[in-house]
């Protein structure tokens, strides 16, 4: 089975670092970006299986990134997990509209993040095989 690719976007290098180690230890290929614009460019280029993005980033925010991803033909179906340190930053309506698969509050558990990624990718695979 091919290595599944995860794009991690966060302006905190420690978060990128810890998520990268956790996912690599569990057989994922990780690419990372420190802001929204970089993440979008990387997503278009690398077509990751899933994107983990922070809500608050300099320049383009996490929500703006997802909105842009949904408008782009090559990236519109990529599932997104959003990390946020702000409570109630994303409304349910926005979450549904932008098809954000999961919202995780900071501080988050890397284990929980890994579980969410696996669940989402599994459901995606099931849907594809139907």
């Amino acid at each position, binding site marked *: 089975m091919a290595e599944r690719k995860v794009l991690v976007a966060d*302006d905190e290098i*420690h978060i990128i670092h*810890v998520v990268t180690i*956790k996912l690599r230890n569990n057989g994922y290929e990780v690419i990372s970006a420190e802001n929204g614009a970089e993440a979008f460019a990387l997503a278009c280029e690398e077509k990751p299986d899933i994107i983990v993005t922070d809500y608050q980033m300099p320049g383009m925010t996490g929500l703006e990134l997802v909105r842009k991803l949904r408008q782009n033909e090559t990236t519109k179906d990529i599932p997104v997990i959003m990390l946020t*340190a702000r409570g109630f930053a994303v409304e349910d309506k926005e979450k549904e509209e932008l098809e954000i698969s999961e919202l995780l509050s900071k*501080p988050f558990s890397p284990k929980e993040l890994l579980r969410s990624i696996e669940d989402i990718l599994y459901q995606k695979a099931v849907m594809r095989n139907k």
Partner: protein
Amino acid sequence: MKSVRNLYVIVTSVVAGSLFAEGLARWYYSGTGEGLRFAGYVFVWPVCYFVAAVGVILLGWYWLRLVRGVTSVAQQLREKQSSCIKPSSNKIVNELSEAINKHFGGNGSYIEELEKQIKDSQLKIQLLRRQKRNTDAIIYSIRDAVIVIDEFDKLLMANEAAGKLFNFDYKSSQHKPINELVSSEETKAGENEFVNFLCQSRQNKVRHTRREIDFSNENRSKTFDCIVSCVYGEEERVCGVVAVLHDITREKEISQMKNDFVNHVSHELKTPLASISAYSEMLVDGEADDEQTRKEFYSVIQSQAKRLNRLIEDILNTSRIESGLIKVEKRPVSLTILMEEQLQMIRSYAEEKNIKLIGQKPIVFDQVYADKDMISEVIINLLSNAVKYTPCGGSIKIEMEVDEIAGLARVSVTDTGVGIPKDEIEHVFDKFYRVGANKKQAEGTGLGLNLVKQIVEKVHNGRVFVTSEPGAGSTFGFELPLATAEAVKT
């Protein structure tokens, strides 16, 4: 008595005259001669005429007096002296006067009572008018907008603030429909919402109700707290509605700022906490395979814990300065000495990055009237920022000058760092603001420069400044009043 006497004289004269005339007549017809007949003609008839004439004159005089008495009474009545018609010598006139006096005497008290009531009513009206004027003056002087409508939704009264808010002439708009005055097709949602709220409150007979309504005009949007109360008349019937509109725009802004601050603080606190939590979990779960990785994880946890502590300290310091709770001990201190002390502290950090610190010769008369610890905090913040954002091998230049004419001492720290983009430079002293590009270079709380600004400007009445050239470096500095200038002021 007088009239009886008069009557007596008349009657006696007539009777005596008649008897005398009869006696003469009898004597004449009893056989006397022509002389007696002549005497009869000469004496009897003139006496009879005389007596009759005297009687007529006396009767006429009597009636004349009666007429005069009645005329006088009529005159007095005409002159509205009804309550005090003078008594007359004529009995009949006197009786008439007394009767009239008695009659008008009774009505007089009634009239007096009525006149008193009229005066009382006039006084009450004056009092009520004065009270209304006072009430109007109170309502007109209220800063909040006040609008009163009647049961037909027509304006009863409005004050100046209401006229200003809804743009109508509050003095001449009475009895006009409120919807015509306040809202129209051109007006915005806020005005229409207010009119509907007012009319609905009256229809639903709600005693007190309130709602926040936004009124927006070309310049800005304002939020008002609208309190509407129904005015009840007889039989609990709503006869009007009073609306008081209080401008809460500033309160809302402050509340929003507080919410933003709490959100920001929680975000800033959660960020290092997220790292600490994630790295700890990784260590517990044995995800760090080798000693090197474990050390790396411990190091991250330690640095993030320090960051968290620094952040809390900075938040507390900023909050203490903003609320005025911090103890300030101002005395004359030398900026040169303070700068030297802080340079010693930063020197090892600069050497680690091979950054050259370029100072200047000590200057004299550089004493400022300041809190030593606070200004030391300002200097160390500027120096550590300069070292943090200057690449290895760069340089930092410290300049100090005294402007005796302006009474100021100026300190500036110029680095050869990455610089700040032009669109971000105005925000560098804002709370929690961090220059996007600089985030990668070094950790920070986004509170250090805000603390510098608070200490210099709020506590010491000085000024902070910044200039920057992206890619070439930045100059941060501050000005403080000289101790001599402060002494002159005090």
